[in-house]
């Protein structure tokens, strides 16, 4: 008994402090996840849910729209994550040598789209993608005699158009992390390289890039998770159309749950999405973290 008393006297405060986030996690994360897991085996009805075993999963795997949404999500991820990381890194390297004041300006400028309302951003992009000659992109193409393009109205251009938006707006947080990481690389390494007459490229390849790998791995994992969950731009710009060309798995989940009230099916889809994200994250850590230098 005294042992317990002693333990609580020594460590009780720690448990008190962690109790708050643990309770929040249990109530707002673990409980909803478990409830959704149960729901994925039910024909959900607010008053009388029915247990239907694996029917929702069966229905999901037989649905061609589900597979199309999976493919779109995959294409979106492959088409946005690497290029966005490359752009973010490039911008961070360009900003890093500048004065603190200039750095602060660029950090704020690139972070601005992240904190702006999605609806406001969508309005701007609607104007850019306007299908008539009054749209910014079509106006520009018109200068070269190119006919108007229905950016969001054609199956072959709509997903690309959504991806294109991300190339301009998703760099704020990444730039801040990369700038912090760049600041943490010892200057002596570059000085030693200078003594050896190393080229700029050689310095980047042999010093900067290896030492940025932990940050790159973190950004890669989080970016892939977020791109698998892409929803807002689809919801605001195309509602999954035309002909499901921009329907992603997160948008499909939303449609099934809140438009058709098929909450069980939506829950099943959520678990498959969650499973894929976990697998992708494990794979990234397994294949990329081996040569990360901390």
């Amino acid at each position: 008994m005294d042992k317990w008393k002693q333990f609580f006297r020594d460590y009780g405060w720690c448990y008190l402090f962690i109790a708050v986030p643990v309770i929040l996690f249990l109530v707002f994360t673990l409980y909803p996840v478990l409830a959704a897991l149960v729901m994925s085996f039910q024909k959900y009805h607010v008053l009388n849910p029915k247990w239907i075993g694996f029917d929702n999963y069966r229905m999901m795997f037989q649905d061609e729209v589900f597979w199309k949404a999976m493919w779109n999500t995959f294409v979106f991820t492959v088409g946005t994550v690497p290029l966005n990381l490359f752009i973010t890194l490039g911008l961070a390297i360009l900003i890093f040598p500048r004065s603190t004041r200039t750095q602060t300006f660029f950090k704020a400028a690139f972070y601005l789209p992240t904190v702006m309302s999605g609806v406001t951003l969508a309005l701007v992009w609607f104007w850019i993608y306007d299908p008539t000659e009054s749209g910014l992109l079509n106006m520009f193409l018109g200068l070269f005699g190119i006919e108007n393009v229905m950016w969001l109205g054609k199956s072959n251009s709509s997903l690309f158009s959504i991806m294109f938006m991300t190339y301009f707006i998703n760099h704020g947080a990444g730039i801040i992390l990369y700038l912090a990481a760049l600041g943490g690389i010892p200057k002596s390494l570059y000085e030693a390289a200078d003594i050896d007459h190393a080229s700029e490229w050689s310095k980047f390849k042999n010093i900067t890039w290896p030492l940025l790998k932990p940050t790159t791995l973190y950004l890669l994992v989080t970016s892939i998770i977020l791109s698998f969950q892409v929803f807002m731009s689809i919801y605001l710009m195309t509602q999954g159309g035309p002909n499901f060309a921009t329907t992603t798995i997160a948008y499909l989940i939303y449609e099934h749950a809140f438009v058709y009230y098929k909450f069980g099916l939506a829950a099943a889809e959520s678990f498959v999405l969650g499973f894929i994200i976990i697998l992708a994250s494990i794979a990234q850590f397994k294949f990329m973290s081996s040569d990360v230098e901390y």
Partner: protein
Amino acid sequence: MKKALLTLLSAAMVMVAGCSSQEPTATTNPASGEKDVVTVWTYPVHNDYEPELKKLLESFQSKNPNIEVKYEVLSWAEGPKKFDIALNAGNPPDIYFDKPLGKYVDTGLLVDIKDMIGDKANNYEPVAIDYMKYEDGLYGLPLYMFLHVWGGNKALMEKEGIDYVKIQKEGWTWKEFKEIAQKVTKKNEKGEDQYGLVFQGSGNTSDELLNHLALNNGLPYRVTKDGQFTWNDDKILDTMKYIRELSDAGILPKETAAIDPKKRMELFYNNQAVFMGRAIPYFDQMMKTRNADIDAGKVQGQKVEFVLLPIPHNEGEKQVAVGGAEGYMLFKQKETTDAHLQNSLKVLEHLTGDEAAQASITLGLPPVQKKARETYQPIISKENDEAAKVLAGYVLPPAGISVETGAADDQFKAEVILPTVQTLLNGETTPEQALETFQSKGKMIFGK
């Protein structure tokens, strides 16, 4: 220090507990002597609806001091989502503005008021009441009837010598429409494209043009009362071919698949569209207000006068206007008392009663409340008012399908019609391919 930390922790736990228990939307025990609180979620059904609603509720509360009404005016964009979540959590508002949908009925929380209101349903236009029914149940009372047709730019029509009054009275066939629209499709004086017809073709409303024309090609119901799917023959094929003809002729902008309702209005306001769809009688008022704002320097742009027009029909087929009714519905929560339901019903009746007729008048249509209809004075232009009355006569009664068939039809619309029409409009699918899709998917979903 210890005390402070414990207080902090307790506060956090209380917060968590508070958040996790859902606050009921209504007080369910009026017998205790406290005021019974009735919750109303509604929408800005026209620009000045909220002051109208406030006045209505004030008059209600002066007569019913034991009932407190809490209302919320939701946005059209986000409101339905908020309601869907509340409904599926078993905690909807007591009264909600919309039309009865199969998915609402299916939750078991939408209340059938047929036996609760007795013969009060007779106070409303029968067609409007029919639109609030599902199978044998009455799931709400109408606030107004809506009319979805086409419209025209008065100045441009006059300039082109189009006799729109005759069209309003007698209607027009597809052939007549195409001839007129072809004539007015050209470059305008500013060198901009002037289109014969602009119609929204993107997103979740991309099926409306096909719906409007199919109704006017002898296909009054996509699914009949006995569950028969009808969009699987030459009639729907001809309708889709007609849309392609309009697009190929440049009458419809070739970008229609990417034109949303906002862009459609922009083209109309910019005098780049002679005809437009979908149009409602309220556009008369909207454009008058906009013209006044332009005169006052509040808005920049060109003034436009609006003329309400019928949807063209195929030769030999009946002219049809799209219409229906919207109003207030009564919902129960998981634990609602009969007394609370009765109080909520009183609010519902008041929100759709004679005093509420102004909403319908502002929207440019005669009230659905019989008494108010007797003294109805239109506020839209005389020609549009007369056209609206004529066109309202072409609205079909509801199909009267079952909840199950309604759900299948919703599925068909979302999974087949919308994507197919989007590709028909952007030229990726031919009408013949679209018909094949309708036939095969129709068989899968409707089983016939």
